[in-house]
């Protein structure tokens, strides 16, 4: 079993565990003072937000912005003057 696969199993296991706990404890704060917006009470919202957020940030930074503004590491001269 490769390390990658073990990591995948670990992550999915942890994700499922938090989902289960989220479901079990969610009855307490549904409609309570905490749920100002729908995503506060949606089960597993943060899981999805973390995944999509990481994807959006990575794609935006590395595919859209970085190719335009990247320069070689000696772009700014160092030393005298």
């Amino acid at each position: 079993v490769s390390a990658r696969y073990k990591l995948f199993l670990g992550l999915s296991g942890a994700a499922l565990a938090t989902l289960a706990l989220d479901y079990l404890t969610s009855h307490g704060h549904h409609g309570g003072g905490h749920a100002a917006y729908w995503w506060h009470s949606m089960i597993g919202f943060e899981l999805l937000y973390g995944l999509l957020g990481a994807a959006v940030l990575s794609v935006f930074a590395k595919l859209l912005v970085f190719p335009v503004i990247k320069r070689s590491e000696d772009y700014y001269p160092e030393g005298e003057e």
Partner: protein
Amino acid sequence: VSVFQHPAAFLFLGAVLALLSRGKLRKIVLLASPALALYAVSMLTPDAVLTHSIPGFTLELLRVDRLSRFFAIIFCIASFLGTLYQLHLDDAGEPVSSLALAGGALGVVFAGDWLTMFVFWEAMTVASLFVIWFARTPGSHRAGLRYLFIHVVGGGTLFAGILLHWGGGGDTFFGPMTGPAGLSPAGWLILTGVCVNAAVPPLHTWLTDAYPECSVTGSVVQSAFTTKTAVFVLLRAFPGAEPLAVLGTVMAVYGVIYAVMSNDIRRLLAYHIVSQVGFMVAGIGLGTTMSMDGAAAHAFCHILYKALLFMGAGAIVHAAGTGKLTELGGLWRKMPVTMILFMIGAFSISGLPPFNGFISKSITLASAGEAHRPLIELFLELASVGTFLSIGLKLAYFAFLGTDRDITPKPLPPNMVGAMFGAAALCTLLGVFPGVLYDLLPLGTEYHPYTSSHVLSSLQLHIGTAAGFWLLLKLLWVRPYIALDVDWLYRKPFPAVLFPLVRGMRAFGGFFKEKGVAAVYSTVPGFMDVDAKRMPVGMALFWGIVFLSALALYSWNF
């Protein structure tokens, strides 16, 4: 009270004594100064005042309230940890400048009027400039000059605002500038000057440019003071200033986007100062009791985990000789202690329980929800995702795991390791016992971070982010490039205009030195020196004649 009860006095005095002493004695002085300053802070009572009269003005050097005590405590702790991390240095310059920097920060924190605040504010600029310069590299020399350039403009803007405020009949009292009528023009100038030090984009590049150019010990010290003093001033003078809520949110996301692109570990961490200070600035802009206490709490925790992260990064640079992720990898086997301590810092900054970022960041996030600012809440949460993505995953993966570069690290001085243990212990202790911090909060907010929904939200956000990193590892792979930022404007086009201009003026001056002075000499031979090439009197005379002729022409015409 006497001047020797002012906590800043211990740091300035310590700086002078450390400069005069050497060896063991200097080390004792360096460590004792912040410790005594912390003791002095603990002895201050709310009725303590210290004034100093100058002609026409009374400076209020010391004013104590919960807000100033709160920031003073963390500044003393940061100064102690930073000094400990520097203790192996033979050169007194950097530790002494660092003590002066902390002293300036305490001076601002306890200032009772705008003039006192401004004097210490500028003292901080000078001290931090020397912390940069004592890296003694060509890169730090140039970065220091750019740092000075930005801070002179920022300090000038602040001072113009203060003078305009007084000129308009404003109070000299260092207090809120916000009111029902909104900000006055003077208030806007002051706010802009403070925003320079708070590293609000596009005024942030002095930080991300200069901090990675400091020595590894210097950047630890730098990370604590300048931006957090600005946060203190914003809390003091601009609570609830609406533009700050949006600016802070922009900062938080801006910083992480650059962190995702950075290759240099200390530049990556510097962009995370911008991002984390964004959380604080947004909290101040939201202006509720809870959001402002959240900002203060986050400043407190941030100073600790940021110092820890810069210490870990500094340990990597010290041991491996490079801070570029493309040249690092496989360090977990050789630097396991550094890795564990660094990861405590990484989990803290991401807001993972049970570390201190969790107990402070969640206050700001919750207050944005309660203030019905869903976009601010969601974008700050996106910044949290980016924080874990770029520090806890990207930096950690490429430095400690990744491609094994077969680096043989240099051993670390024990004081560096000790400072890392100290910072990591405080990050963990505050996370486990949040009450210690909450009891000190300036506005006395009550908050319970360890509810099942808060803990689960944080865990899920981190697991989701880790899954994203795992899927997008190829895309996030580090590349040996820098990412341009707005400092490009004053590093490329500005010199392209300025340097030819300076060269032209030099040529112009040279021409007159040759021809013009010779003309004066030939008409007034009595001034002729034996050595015709060196005539300071002649030059002064020449320019005097030019100036007086211009003046005569001017007054004659009008």
